[in-house]
């Protein structure tokens, strides 16, 4: 049973206080969190070292401008962090970071991971319209009632992994009906207990809120079935669903698992010489002049499906509105099930494609 730190403050205010204390007492050299950066309420991730600036931090703001796992991987790739830094990130971002570590893409040695039971985030489109702020009250109302907030991204509404794995601290959100007045942070690890020592608040023996979590999981599973039915119903064909792709590669650029510096599809290997076009023209009377998007998407699914954490950014950035996240969920769900693998759950569990099991998939053989 984990220790729980209780503060008599609203959840986000309490968390901000904890972050401020950690920074002021020198227990961490910086805090990585969402913060307001613009005058019109724009929010972005920031690495903050001045406690004064933490007043702009909005660690629970329901937006995912980028996958934090991807950012943390990139900034620790050349040289790891030497000083401890507290990072606030959503469960899927932490899972993505864990998968990236299995691929040797950075380091997480000195991070103190603070995550939350995650209610989901709104689409980027609403942030672009500056329309998230006005939805905040209804967002928290829905969560207190144990509902899925209206208009959150389909990837979030159907996410089953909203309780973080591997977080040092977990801010209780789901099932916390008193979050307007109370902030509860579970201290899951020794590291968490050490850094939390001396913070003003009550330390109590915690009970994991299982009932509300179970109830929400049920609702999310229902949504997931609906979502998969929508894209997986009759008439679903890869060549029609991907046809209107404009080849911008935004899905790959924002994907935490797509970490290659140069994608195969941007390499000379994917450029055609005259003989390719001549053969196509002779065979069909026409040839696709711009690189084929279907092949790109199939191979991308092939590459990421084992580690896809369903963060939903691919669908969020697609200028053509292709339901990429739902498609990835369908494909990766099947692949991960086949290997009994949950990406980002256990850092010591090897990636299925890099482990060899002599007796496996006998049926296929």
């Amino acid at each position, binding site marked *: 049973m984990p220790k729980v730190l209780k503060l008599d403050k609203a959840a986000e205010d309490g968390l901000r206080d904890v972050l401020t204390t950690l920074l002021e007492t020198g227990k961490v050299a910086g805090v990585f969190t969402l913060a307001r950066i613009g005058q019109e309420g*724009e929010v972005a*991730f920031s690495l*903050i070292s001045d406690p004064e600036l933490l007043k702009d931090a909005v660690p629970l703001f329901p937006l995912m401008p*980028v996958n934090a796992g991807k950012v943390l991987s990139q900034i620790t790739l050349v040289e790891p962090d030497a000083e401890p830094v507290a990072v606030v990130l959503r469960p899927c971002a932490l899972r993505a970071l864990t998968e990236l570590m299995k691929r040797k893409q950075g380091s997480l040695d000195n991070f103190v991971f603070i995550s939350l039971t995650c209610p989901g985030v709104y689409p980027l489109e609403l942030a672009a319209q500056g329309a998230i702020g006005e939805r905040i009250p209804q967002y928290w109302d829905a969560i207190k009632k144990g509902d899925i907030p209206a208009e959150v991204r389909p990837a979030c509404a159907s996410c089953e992994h909203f309780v973080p794995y591997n977080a040092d601290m977990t801010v209780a959100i789901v099932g916390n009906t008193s979050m307007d007045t109370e902030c509860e942070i579970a201290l899951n690890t020794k590291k968490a207990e050490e850094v939390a020592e001396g913070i003003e608040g009550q330390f109590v023996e915690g009970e994991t809120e299982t009932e509300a979590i179970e109830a929400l999981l049920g609702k999310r599973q229902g949504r997931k079935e609906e979502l998969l039915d929508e894209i997986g119903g009759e008439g679903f064909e890869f060549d029609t669903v991907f046809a209107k792709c404009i080849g911008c590669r935004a899905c790959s650029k924002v994907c935490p698992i797509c970490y290659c510096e140069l994608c195969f599809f941007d390499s000379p290997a994917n450029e055609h010489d005259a003989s390719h076009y001549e053969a196509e023209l002779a065979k*069909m009377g026409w040839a696709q*002049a*711009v690189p084929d998007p279907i092949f790109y998407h199939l191979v991308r699914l092939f590459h990421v499906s084992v580690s896809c954490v369903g963060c939903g950014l691919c669908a969020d950035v697609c*200028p053509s*509105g292709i339901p990429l996240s739902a498609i990835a969920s369908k494909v990766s769900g099947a692949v991960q099930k086949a290997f009994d693998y949950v990406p980002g759950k256990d850092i010591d569990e090897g990636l299925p494609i890099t482990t060899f099991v002599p007796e496996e998939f006998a049926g296929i053989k």
Partner: protein
Amino acid sequence: MASTRKGALFSAEQGRQAGIRDFIGRALGEGGFDAVLMPARLSTGDSFTYLLINDESVLERAFALPPIMPVQGAKAVSSIRGLARDGAAIAAFLRPCEARAAVELSKLGQVDLQNLTLVTLDCPGVLPLAEYLESPTKGDEIFQDGARNWNSEPMRRVCQTCDRFSATGAEDLHIGTLGQKDEDFLLIPQSPKGEGLLDALGISTEADISGWEKEVYDLAQERKATKSQAQDELEARVQGTDNLLRLLSNCINCRNCMRVCPICYCRQCHFDSEKTRFGFEDYLARAQAQGGLRLPADTVLFHIGRMLHMSLSCVSCGACQDACPMDIPVAELFGLVGDANQGAFNYVPGRSRDEPIPLATFEQEEFEEVEQSHAGTSAT
């Protein structure tokens, strides 16, 4: 405005698109070119792509002026460069901004115009991509209506202020439609190659085009005024670092503006290379120097760097803005900066194949006023 230039007047009973297809079919059949590169409707019917076609029966999918720009045509021209280089005679049907970008890419060594016949069309603009894809049927209607009346109101903002919607000066053949009857179009040769093509097909150019020229001139004047006003407004909003930061504050660093830009042809962008990746201590030091550091870092630096690289050749095609998931008016910003930089060098990207890109030329006496203002400031 008196012109001695002539064109061929085509009247297509089945409508203009069908007429253009007939012309292409005839050219393919009679060896005017081996294949045509042009937009075509997807078999799913809900969007468009670029196809290379050599079979007349496939031409019914071809669509010379689609209602959207899902791919910038210059990128399509660039991707088939292997074929063009190998000697096949290809005619590319492009919007003026796409042809201009293709000409810029030829100066950058990315496109070979030698075996290409560039054909442009009067362009009424395109609809915003996302809007069209939400309801393609409705989009088709809105576009047809706007195109017929040259009403740019439903088109993208960069299209509404575009004053280079007609012949670029660097194409081989231009198809003029402005001020013509619905089913009519003019074939206007713009180069010896274009003249040769019409000659070979036995099309004589006897029609007077001065009426069309006047229509183009008048609309261009009108658009110039609209653009100047829009740019003044935007300039007031973005001047100074703080304002630029504000305009770009929602940028999520997805690089989509760069990916769809016809001019950004680098296989790997400097800003994605290891040259822009630092150790964690560097990021922390930067955060400590100012209290905090936004991550991903250097989003605005990326945009400034990109503007430095592409602004002289920016044709204001608007593909960047169509692809931005955060609806930042990037095309309008890049157009503003592009026009200013191009104006300083009296350069118009894509108007001539022979005019070198200013950065690739050296003038002994140039920008003295800039030099003067920095005189004596060097370390020596």
